[in-house]
């Protein structure tokens, strides 16, 4: 298929003033939010999504792309300066970033993180441009039984890969499917679980759910932990940027492996950036001539971690835009954004809204590129000061922003109460070790799974068991078995082996 023509056609649309402004604004907002520990890219996109309602879809997507890429880099700032990962994906960055900061090389570590994040994001966007369009054509061969299994595969993969506990991951996914069921039945339009509340007939809005699940629990947790003081506001010593640029060849080998992991793991629903950065870090350590320096301030550790967690950014969006299966919680919110703007993921998105989807891929590339000037020495020094915002003040601001975000979805106070309820649910879930992403995915995929299951049963007039006998279905079922059965078995096997080694 012709890949370049639609991309070239989308370039002029992307390079308009409102688009560029949205991308720059998004990157800045993303870096600020990402640099605040406890606030994730998912939360910032969810809270700021209502701002985009009145925008042109491409401008809205540009802002989301900017927040996403900006937040993934922003997470490295407190990880390096304070050993507190700003986002979950930056956990591995603390291993070598903080020791570098202690050696007085915080500025240098941030520059390595910045370059790795920017190049990781750009390479990931290129992979999306190459892989997403042909994959969207494959989905043309999918009928209701195949879509049903793709949905089940997405749910199962998220339950297995997210969190350490399979029953809890599965329970979170089932809770999501239940929440997705509230409202009118997609085929017969019978009302289900609305308990007389007419506002629930149209179902639970994904934005309300995401704002509640992702914005309220960190607020409550921050309020609970305000007695813990955070050391802030140090002045950073930066090496000349050109000097760090000259070090790029040193990182190329580490980046290549991080890229490989980022793309392939990113394609799997549920496998997150933190997993990729961990794999990339371990590989960099194995390849290094002096592995003993890892964990003590080796810049290659920072490069592997940051490149890895950004290489996963656009890759996680590939199943989202082609199959409608979000690969991560951020992808689920971005999918919510696509749906809000009337864009249905799948092959039709590439056919009917080519300018928008190809434009979005270019935006993913450009927002990674503009990270370099925006996250440069002066800006990073400035962003490091964001950590000075007192937590008690931040709690109130996020709470009020969440209220306005949930209200603006349908101008309904009922939605604000719902958001609050989901916030408490999210708090209980995070305290009891239930992952949040399967809930969001369940709400998105539930109606899709149910309607395709029922359509498949209606199509199966001759009792041929089309759900199990069609070739693509059989492939998907095999994939489902492989991804859900083997990882837990492998985990059990390796933990048993570790225990044995310890006792020996």
């Amino acid at each position, binding site marked *: 298929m012709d890949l370049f023509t639609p991309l070239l056609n989308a370039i002029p649309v992307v390079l308009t003033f409102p688009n560029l402004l949205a991308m720059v604004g998004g990157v800045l907002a993303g870096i600020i939010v990402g640099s605040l520990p406890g606030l994730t890219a998912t939360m910032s996109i969810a809270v700021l999504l209502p*701002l985009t309602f009145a925008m042109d879809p491409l401008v809205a997507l540009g802002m989301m792309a900017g927040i996403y890429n900006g937040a993934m880099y922003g997470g490295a700032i407190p990880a390096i300066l304070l050993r507190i990962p700003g986002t979950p994906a930056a956990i591995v960055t603390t291993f070598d970033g903080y020791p570098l900061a202690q050696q007085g090389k915080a500025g240098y570590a941030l520059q390595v993180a910045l370059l790795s994040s920017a190049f990781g994001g750009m390479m990931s966007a290129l992979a999306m441009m190459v892989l997403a369009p042909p994959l969207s054509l494959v989905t043309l061969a999918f009928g209701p039984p195949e879509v049903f299994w793709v949905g089940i595969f997405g749910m199962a993969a998220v339950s297995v890969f997210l969190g350490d506990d399979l029953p809890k991951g599965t329970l979170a996914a089932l809770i999501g499917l239940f929440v997705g069921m509230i409202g009118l039945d997609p085929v017969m339009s019978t009302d*289900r679980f609305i308990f007389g509340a007419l506002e629930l007939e149209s179902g639970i809005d994904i934005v309300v759910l995401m704002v509640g699940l992702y914005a309220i629990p960190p607020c409550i947790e921050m309020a609970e932990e305000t007695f813990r003081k955070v050391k802030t506001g140090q002045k950073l010593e930066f090496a000349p940027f050109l000097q760090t640029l000259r070090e790029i060849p040193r990182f190329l080998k580490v980046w290549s492996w991080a890229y490989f992991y980022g793309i392939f793991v990113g394609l799997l629903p549920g496998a997150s950036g933190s997993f990729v950065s961990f794999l990339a870090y371990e590989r960099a350590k194995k390849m290094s001539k002096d592995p003993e320096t890892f964990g003590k301030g080796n810049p290659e550790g920072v490069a592997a971690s940051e490149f890895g967690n950004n290489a996963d950014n656009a890759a996680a969006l590939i199943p989202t835009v082609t199959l409608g299966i979000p690969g991560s919680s951020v992808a689920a919110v971005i999918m919510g954004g696509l749906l809000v703007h009337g864009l249905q993921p799948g092959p039709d998105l590439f056919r009917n809204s080519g300018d928008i989807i190809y434009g979005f891929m270019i935006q993913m590339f450009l927002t990674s590129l503009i990270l370099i000037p925006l996250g440069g020495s002066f800006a990073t020094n400035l962003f490091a000061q964001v950590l000075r915002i007192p937590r*008690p*003040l931040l709690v109130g601001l996020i709470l009020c922003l969440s*209220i306005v975000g949930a209200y603006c979805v349908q101008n309904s106070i009922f939605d604000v109460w719902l958001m*609050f309820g989901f916030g408490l649910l999210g708090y*209980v879930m995070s305290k009891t070790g239930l992952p949040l992403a399967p809930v969001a995915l369940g709400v998105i995929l539930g109606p899709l799974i149910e309607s395709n299951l029922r359509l498949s049963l209606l199509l199966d007039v001759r009792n041929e068991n089309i759900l199990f006998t069609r070739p693509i279905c059989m492939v998907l079922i095999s994939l489902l078995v492989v991804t859900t059965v083997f990882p837990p078995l492998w985990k059990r096997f390796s933990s048993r082996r570790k225990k044995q080694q310890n006792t020996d």
Partner: protein
Amino acid sequence: MKTIHNDVVLGTSVAVFAALGCWRAMGFSADSRVFPLLVLVPTTVIGLLIAVRGQMRLWRERDNPRFFVNPIRFFQIVVIMGLALFGLQYLGFLTTSAITIPVISFLLGFRKPLPVFATTGLFLVIIYIVFIQILSRPLPMEIWTWFGN
């Protein structure tokens, strides 16, 4: 030491609610009940499994992670959130925010009036410009506009 494991409370509550959901789903038409039952029956089973496993962990390992870091702060913040949502209907968004942000800040220990009120003011101005002036989103009506009418 707590005598009930978090997972026991979680699993039992989920199992009870899911079982009630199954009972409710039985009242739906034949087609509409299939998917709810496919979801809620395993939910009940997994809820029970998590509860049993939690109890066994408590017996075997005496492992029981703490639920609240600071229960008083939790209840304070939840009550304020509830009051803020209640106030939203009667006071309007801007008035409610103008009260909520300083109250939370003072309650959680940050009591410097100048930064608190300056940040609150700046936040309200940004919300007013972005949501009301630029995006024309109708926010809940302010109490002072009622007086004006």
